[in-house]
Every structure is written in structure tokens, then in C-alpha cells.
């Protein structure tokens, strides 16, 4: 019963999202926020798989975002492949990259894992800058095309629907992973590596699977981003970007489906709305992070759950009074 209720709510929400562009009257700014939010939801859901479910911290996910973005951008601009193939390859390469680095680093935990992921993020950033023949260095990659089918080009509002489709697809895939033997292994590893080992889970293997599948999401998001903005440069793939992903996950609610969604929308909204304020915007963002961490450590989802729980307790106590 509960399962069907959630499905119904989700479907209603999807219909709402599909009709949103019309309702918003094609407001360019709001469409921008929606599209970027969608891309962010995919990217941060990937990070949530790794951090929220398998308990492995990454403050370097911008590396996978970059691999996805640059792979698709380079393949489509330099080799003229179709954008669909580019996005696919972006995801594939990000996945392979993550699997390779996960093998040696998965033995690290907590702060040391955080440090090495920061290192990987920085290294990827430096690699992009130092390979100008491939990546265009500081000047980046321009004129990244939009996807097309035949002669129909998916730009403007139709790209929003592409992003929406990918968001729905990635959330379904996330659900399939989480509610499976794989997902249980992830959570077991997060709760107790020793006990996970003792029940027959090959911890190193599943940690690597977690990294790889997490990167798949973020890599595809990166590719979608590249085609959306049409121009990418190393600036978008720094530690700041990784921090944005982590903030979305942590402040939205780790290990949930709705958490990364809420977190992403809030982050994008803050970033885009206060863009014009320059330094003041960033100051607000910095303070927001501190406040969010202090007041909603379990994320907005956790805060709502606690609120509902407390509300229930209050109502019950009131109802139990003679």
C-alpha cells in the first residue's frame, strides 16, 4: 500500500514537472534554474550513492563531473560523434576512471579518504589545464552542440525535457541499486565494515562498485551540463564544485531520494539568485553552509522527519490526556 502511494506521488510530481515550463511562461531565468537543478540532482544523487549509502566520503566528485563533461565535449566537437553517444561515453569513462582509482583508495576511510578525493579532484583539474591540445587548457571547449534526432535539435525547452528524462531515469536506477543485493552490501559496509566482511561481502569489491556507479551518475550529469551551457572550462571543475555537490547531499539529507533533490534545488537557487551580488553572494553561501550544518545536521529530510516525529509525540500526548 505504502509503496503504491509513493509511486503515485512520484508520478504526479513528474506530470507537474513536465507541465512546468508552460506554467512558468518560458521564463528564461527559471528555466535555467530548473535545468541546472536537474543536472545537479543527477550528480548529487550519484554522490549520495557513494556517501549516503556506502559511507565513503568524496570531496572530489568534480573530477567525475569533469571527465563526463570533457569526454562528451571533446568527442562531439573534435570527432563529430552524436551527442547521445557523447553523453554515454561521458558516463562510461567517468565510471571506468572511478573504478580504477577506487581500487587503491578504498582502503582509506573518513578524513583520509576525504583528503585523497580532494587530491584526485585537484589532480584532475590540473590535468585538464596541462593538456591544452586535448582539453583546450584554460580556454576550454567551445561550441558544444545540442543533441538531435534527425534534423530536430533539442535546444531550449526541449533540452529541459531531455534533462527531466535523465533525472527520472537516474532516480529509477538509483532505486534499483539501493533496493537490491548491491544496495544492501553498500549499507552494510557503511554500518560496519567488519560485520559486512563477516557476512560474506567482499568489501573492497563493493566499495569499488559504489565509486564506479556513483561516478556514472555524476559523469552523465557532467556531459548533460556541457551540452547545456555549450562551453566548458577548467574553472567549473574545481574543489568548489565538489563542495557544492557535498553540500547538496549533506544539507538535503544523505541516504535518501528526496534529500539530494531538495539540496540541489536549494543550492542552485542560492547560487543563481544571488549571482549578481558577487562577493556578498558567496558570503551568504558560506554562512548558509555553516548554519545548515549546525541546525540541520541530518539534512532537511532529517529535520522534517524529526519534526513529524515530534509532532506525532505531541499530538499523542495531547490525545492521551484524560
Amino acid at each position, binding site marked *: 500500500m505504502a509503496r503504491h502511494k509513493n509511486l503515485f506521488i512520484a508520478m504526479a510530481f513528474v506530470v507537474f514537472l513536465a507541465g512546468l515550463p508552460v506554467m512558468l511562461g518560458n521564463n528564461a531565468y527559471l528555466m535555467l534554474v530548473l535545468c541546472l537543478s536537474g543536472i545537479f540532482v543527477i550528480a548529487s544523487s550519484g554522490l549520495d550513492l557513494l556517501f549516503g549509502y556506502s559511507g565513503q566520503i568524496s570531496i572530489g566528485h568534480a573530477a567525475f563531473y569533469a571527465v563526463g563533461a570533457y569526454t562528451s565535449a571533446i568527442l562531439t566537437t573534435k570527432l563529430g560523434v552524436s551527442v547521445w553517444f557523447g553523453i554515454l561515453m561521458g558516463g562510461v569513462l567517468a565510471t571506468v576512471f572511478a573504478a580504477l582509482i577506487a581500487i587503491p583508495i578504498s582502503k582509506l576511510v573518513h578524513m583520509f579518504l576525504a583528503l585523497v578525493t580532494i587530491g584526485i579532484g585537484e589532480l584532475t583539474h590540473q590535468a585538464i589545464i596541462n593538456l591544452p591540445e586535448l582539453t583546450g587548457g584554460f580556454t576550454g571547449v567551445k561550441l558544444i552542440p545540442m543533441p538531435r534526432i534527425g534534423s530536430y535539435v533539442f535546444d531550449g525547452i526541449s533540452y529541459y525535457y531531455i534533462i527531466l528524462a535523465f533525472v527520472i531515469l537516474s532516480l529509477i536506477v538509483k532505486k534499483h541499486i539501493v533496493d537490491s*543485493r548491491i544496495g544492501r552490501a553498500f549499507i552494510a559496509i557503511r554500518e560496519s565494515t567488519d560485520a559486512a566482511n563477516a557476512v560474506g561481502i*567482499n568489501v573492497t569489491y563493493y566499495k569499488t562498485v559504489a565509486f564506479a556507479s556513483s561516478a556514472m551518475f555524476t559523469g552523465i550529469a557532467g556531459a548533460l551540463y556541457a551540452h547545456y551551457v555549450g562551453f566548458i572550462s577548467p574553472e567549473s571543475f574545481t574543489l568548489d564544485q565538489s563542495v557544492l555537490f557535498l553540500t547538496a547531499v549533506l544539507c538535503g539529507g544523505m541516504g535518501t531520494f528526496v534529500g539530494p533533490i531538495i539540496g540541489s534545488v536549494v543550492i542552485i537557487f542560492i547560487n543563481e539568485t544571488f549571482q549578481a551580488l558577487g562577493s556578498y553572494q558567496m558570503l551568504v553561501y558560506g554562512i548558509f553552509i555553516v548554519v545548515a550544518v549546525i541546525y540541520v545536521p541530518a539534512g532537511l529530510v532529517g529535520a522534517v522527519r524529526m519534526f513529524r516525529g515530534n509532532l506525532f509525540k505531541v499530538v499523542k500526548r495531547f490525545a492521551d490526556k484524560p
Partner: protein
Amino acid sequence: MLISLESVTMKFGGLTAVDQVTLQIKENDICGLIGPNGAGKTTLFNVIAGHYKPFCGAILFQNRRIDGLHPYQINNYGIARTYQNINLFRSMTVLENIMVGKHPRLSAGIVGSIFRTPTQRREEKELREKAMDILKMVGLENKAEETSKNLSYGEQRRLEICRGIASDPKLLLLDEPAAGMNTKEKVDLIEFIRKIRSFGITILVVEHDMKLVMGLTEYLFVLNFGKLIAQGEPGDIQSNPEVIKAYLGDDI
């Protein structure tokens, strides 16, 4: 012999926690591992389960050497364990803990899980049913969807044992399963362990409650300062002067 240890030694720096322990356990026995605090019982468990690689010595399980293997490999071969301080997956539900216990006996991989192939779906369905059957054995089936950290202490202990037998092990290592239980729970526990044995599972239990040990086990190994100082049937062990000397002042 289901499992035999040959001169197994475990050192931590200068401390020898397990000192040339040699023992064999017959299939389908319920054996006990006893000894004063700090005798090395849990360490021995950890060595058998693969958490530590022995400093020297060999462990043969079903004629296969398992010393030095990873814990998950040893679990795959058929050894399961529980912990002194319950080590459940606390944020998982009761049912999920059992389901994850069956992990090594399933075959679904990442591709099957993402695409929800018919094989994977069938496997998950059967898994749920089998897990519920296990819960019914201990009367926890009504709490299947309860988060495991909300269970009472006794229920959590039972759940952990259930998780251990979920993978159909041949050997079950129980580390102080009766700790914190009242008399009735201990009686139920003895019955439960005998039932587990009737499934063909061999059991090695570490316990401090002597009455429970004497009533449950058929063969005892006594450890002191890492050395095996005595082994035999419970009646003989009770009157063994070495054992009494080691335990002076312990509970009866």
C-alpha cells in the same frame, strides 16, 4: 573433522594472545570455548573468522586451509559468526539484516540489479520468503519491517544469530550469545541453538555462564593466557584441577 587448528599462534607486538592452540571440532557438535577473561577466546574467534592472520600455524576447514584468507572468503566457505557486542546493521530493518546475511548465496550482480532481470526479481522474492521463514523461527516475523536498532536487547541477539545462519553455514561461531539475557531467554537460547544444530550446523560458543555451558555443550575447550589447558566433556572439565585453578573465583 569439520575444522582443525594446528599450533595456531597469534601475536600482537610482544603479546602472545593465542599460543600454539591445536584442536579439532567434529561435525554437528555443539562445542564450547571457555576460559577466564583475557584468555584469548575472542581473539581465537577472530583468527578463525579471518579477521586476523595467524602468526603461525594452520587452520583447516573441510580439508581446506583457511588461515590468512579474507573474512568474506571464509564466510563464503561456510563459517559465520556473531559478536560479543552485537554488530547488527542498525539502520536496516530486521528483515534486511537477514537478507544481507544471505549475501554470499545470491548471484545478482550490478547489471542484474539495475535492469531488474527476471532472474534477479525471482531471486529477491525467494530471498524475502526464506528470510521471513528464518524470522518465524525466533518469533520475530511481526517485527520484520522494524528498524533493527529499535529491538530489545534479547531480540537483537536473536536477530544476529539468525543473520549468521542465513547463509547456511557449516560452522557457526557464537561470541557470548547469552550476555545480558535473563533465565527464560537463556533457556530459549539453548533450545534455539539445538534447533540450529539440527539443521546440520556445527556450533562453537564462547560463554561465561557456566550453567549454560554445561547444559548446552557436548565438548569443551579451555583457554588460559592463550594456551589450550584442557579439553573434554563438560563433566570432566568441571572437575579438572587445572581448569579450577585458572578460574579461581569465577562465576558458577
